[in-house]
């Protein structure tokens, strides 16, 4: 089974870089996965995922929850909101487009793992300690499921 882990976020924006930290750690651990730094998470996610059996997308969120909290959502065709966005292309649009264009070439399982962020405005290449824990949690979750 081939797995790809896609990190989304801005590495210079403290906790916003959580997704990028996850893929860097996985690379350092020589985990049996391929990784991609997708930064803004635009349509290149589709090309990156094509041909894999399984994909993880890792992103920081700010939903008012406890910083560092990890949430998991299985993304399935038909369960995605169609969204119009005035600049950039969001994840839901990207995946929906992928299903229309590529159908079965996309991974059978696409999982979104989010980490609740605390600070996304300070210019820093390091996450806050709470989010560091979340990063570790995400790595364990991925490795556990391989």
């Amino acid at each position: 089974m081939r797995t790809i882990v896609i990190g989304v976020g801005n590495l210079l924006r403290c906790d916003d870089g959580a997704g990028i930290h996850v893929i860097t750690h996985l690379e350092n651990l020589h985990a049996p996965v391929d990784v991609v730094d997708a930064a803004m998470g635009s349509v290149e996610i589709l090309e990156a995922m094509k041909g894999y059996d399984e994909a993880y997308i890792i992103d920081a969120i700010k939903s008012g929850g406890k910083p560092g909290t990890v949430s998991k959502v299985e993304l399935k065709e038909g369960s995605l909101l169609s969204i119009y966005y005035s600049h950039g292309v969001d994840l839901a649009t990207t995946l929906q487009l992928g299903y229309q264009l590529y159908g079965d070439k996309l991974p059978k399982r696409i999982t979104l793992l989010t980490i609740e962020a605390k600070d996304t405005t300070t210019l820093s290449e390091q996450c806050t300690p709470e989010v560091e824990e979340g990063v570790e949690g995400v790595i364990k979750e991925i490795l556990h499921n391989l």
Partner: protein
Amino acid sequence: MKTITIDPVTRLEGHGKISIFLNDQGNVENAYIQIPELRGFEKFCEGRRAEDMPIITPRICGVCPVAHHFASTKALDAAFGVEPTETAKKLRELMYMGYYIYDHTLHFYFLGAPDFVVGPDAPPAERNIFGVLKKVGIDVGREVIKHRAYGQKITEIIGGKATHPTCGIPGGISKGLSEEERSQIESMAQSSIEFAKFTLNIFNDIVLGNKKYVDMITSDTYKLNTYNMGLVDKNNKVNLYDGVIRVTDQEGDEYDRFTAPDYLDHISETVEQWTYSKFTYLKKIGWKGLIDGPSSGVYRVGPLGRLNASVGMATTLANTEYQRMMKTLGGTPVQSTLAFHWARLIELIYASEHALELVKDPKITGRDLRNPIGEPEEGVGVVEAARGILIHHYKLDKDALVKKANLIVATTNNYADICISVRDAAKGLIKDGVVDDEILNKIEMSFRAYDPCFGCSTHYLPGLAPMTLEIYNSARRLVKTIDRS
């Protein structure tokens, strides 16, 4: 007085926001657009090693990393007093064409085309990429993704990584191109030319073939009579990677020209109380506020600014299309904001043609990749980011650590223009307090044409509402909220 607020970008932090103020008659009194600015980045760079700058600065933004990479690399060339080798310069430029191919492709199909191909008055649920594909066919969608990926692949082959390149070093480039890679890029460039031609045909048939759209493009609502600025080659043709900065006036005549190191003698920055972002203006004319015309130092950059600041394109197909655009829309300069979309497609074909020229050049696989560098001093690097002039300016100490950095990004150069365009569009479109979805979308079209980039802020969350409209009464109480998702 009623206040209407359009929140065009949904992000973790730092929204871009349009606020429209109506008078008691329901007509537009004023309109403001606030753009989040990445504050503190220049400070963040201080004390860093010079050679790290081309790696760090692309991380400011996931939208134009290649532009930051090369503005930074060129600033280091200047700071170390070295020119890149001929092969290195060609490789940098070839990679830069790849960036333009992927950037302009995305903008047209995902962001520009929904308004024209689907229609400005279509329901928001259809005015998106899916509506575009419904009209032009699903196979076109595959071609769009394929050619976007080609642009990325070109940058990856030369740059090391597609999103965050690492190849640029002062005096050259870190690795050469193999014959196999060269041949791969050649086929991608060939294919991109055909794709760009096809895209221009779509634009021609669907947009220019529709009188209603042409009238809209040329209407006063979307007109802005500013100066224009862009990089040009020795023949005054558009050059995206290198050249002299040329400024033309409202008649299309040359007003000014200068090289990167002199930018501070020609461009100044100012602030207004209501926004964090700075405004730039032509220093010799001065800042007169948010007005256009010859007495105001406001200038336009980006695809339309570049084409207006030049006399043509340096490749055959692009130049033919350039001449056609200028002729169709009344001659140089074309000051219709919506013509940005056409200009962007002309640049897409130029980037594809120029990529092919470069990849066929025997020097492109040369092995002379780097010139020896001199002592660290001060340097300015300028490139045309997809959205306009981008300047990096560094002062280095004797150990080649950054003492001071100054960055002027494309959207800052266009900020005043975007503000005026939005205000004038709102004034032209909102009458007697009537504000419906179609009107709001047409106002948004006036800033979407610039492709303003807020990527310097954090990226957005998947799944959040992309836009809300808030209406306040004269007591500033929120009376209505429209969620447009």
